């Protein structure tokens, strides 16, 4: 049986294999993804982002437990991204440590990914991996980014609902949220609410939110949760469902899907054009242009101009 067919009929080993092929940009992975494309678009994609140490993995663990304990529970997939070492190309992917409660449930599928040098908080192939999980029938897909600072906002283009996490005792982290990832949040979560300072962190975030542009249709809520003892998790799950409904009612879901496709197409187009352009250069022209820029003979812009003239 073909790989696409096996994935479609719930073969978990085939799914795992497909995810590897996608991560490795292999032609077989691309072919299979193309065959499965018509089946995508059914899952709700939820991004979970925030500074390192705010409890993203632990929250994903609790939230998934809660979802799976409901009547008629959804199938849940988790994609957890961790950084690749820029020096060795290796990575330690440790998000599963906090997700041990989820093992043994066939309605859950967890995949760890290294970002392989991508800078926006996800890997270049995360969107393909999520598409494959969507086609395989997972209804909620939680995408956990690498620990983020201010600028890693790729998740906004990859998810329908974005959770941004903060934690008490991280005054500076709350400050940085103001400038960057705050703008992409659909729901703000102050995790570790069992620790002192959670209320004041929530107030600081509220004040920061009020400085920004106001979306009249969706007021970003701020929720307190404790992934440790489970406080606030049912409320968080309910709020995500409310946001899902809101997107459906307002057409926001189609809008976000459209923006996601635009981003993905442009990324692929750039890659393809770059590869094609380099392949069309006569031997060594491109490398020689680089050397001339390194030797201060040319500016990078002039070097590109020259390459285009030939």
């Amino acid at each position, binding site marked *: 049986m073909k790989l696409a067919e096996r994935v479609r009929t719930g073969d978990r080993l085939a799914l795992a294999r497909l995810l590897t092929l996608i991560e490795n940009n292999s032609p077989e992975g691309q072919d299979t993804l193309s065959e499965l494309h018509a089946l995508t678009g059914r899952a709700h994609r939820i991004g979970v982002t925030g500074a390192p140490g705010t409890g993203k993995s632990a929250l994903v663990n609790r939230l998934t437990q809660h979802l799976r304990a409901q009547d008629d529970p959804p199938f849940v997939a988790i994609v957890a991204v961790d950084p690749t070492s820029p020096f060795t190309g290796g*990575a330690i992917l440790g998000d599963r440590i906090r997700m041990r409660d989820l093992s043994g449930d066939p309605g859950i599928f967890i995949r760890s990914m290294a970002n392989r040098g991508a800078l926006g908080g996800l890997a270049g192939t995360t969107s393909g991996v999520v598409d494959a999980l969507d086609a395989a029938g997972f209804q909620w897909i939680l995408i956990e980014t690498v620990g983020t600072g201010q600028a890693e906002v790729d998740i906004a283009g990859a998810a329908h609902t974005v959770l941004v996490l903060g934690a008490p005792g991280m005054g500076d982290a709350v400050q940085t949220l103001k400038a960057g990832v705050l703008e992409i949040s659909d729901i703000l979560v102050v995790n570790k609410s069992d620790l002192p300072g959670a209320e004041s962190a929530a107030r600081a975030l509220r004040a920061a939110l009020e400085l920004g542009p106001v979306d009249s249709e969706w007021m970003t809520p701020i929720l307190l949760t404790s992934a440790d003892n489970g406080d606030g998790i049912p409320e968080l799950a309910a709020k995500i469902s409310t946001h899902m409904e809101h997107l459906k009612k307002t057409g926001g879901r189609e809008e976000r899907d459209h923006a996601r496709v635009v981003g993905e197409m442009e990324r692929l187009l750039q890659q393809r054009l770059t590869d094609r352009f380099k392949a069309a250069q006569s031997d060594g022209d491109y490398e020689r242009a680089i050397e001339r820029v390194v030797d201060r003979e040319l500016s990078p812009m002039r070097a590109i101009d020259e390459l285009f003239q030939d």
Partner: protein
Amino acid sequence: MPETKIRVLVAKPGLDGHDRGAKVIARALRDAGFEVIYTGLRQTPEMIAEAALQEDVQIVGLSVLSGAHMTLVPRILELLKKQGQESVKVMIGGIIPDEDRPKLEELGVAGIFGPGTSTTEVIEHFEGAVTPAPAEG
């Protein structure tokens, strides 16, 4: 451009709580360019097999110091085989008495590393286990 990485699961089955060895190996493998999925302490054979499947790893590295290897390791091998992952290489590090080695190797364990093994030796063995031998001629 296709880009492949060797994916390894590093896990500690059983109940002993000493994970320093596992962490040293995980770090050394990362520094050698591997993608290491680290699952932490007290993993059951079922948890390890499930993680190996979802993560589609080529190697499972187990750290066992408790003496329970003759129960845990065969069970993990059996589960991997049952789920169609007989090609996954299973390596063990820790305290494994000499008399148990032949039995484990016969069951299909691809490498056994005792105390004092250098990380370089472990890395070379891991790389060799998943790299196809060059075709002759």
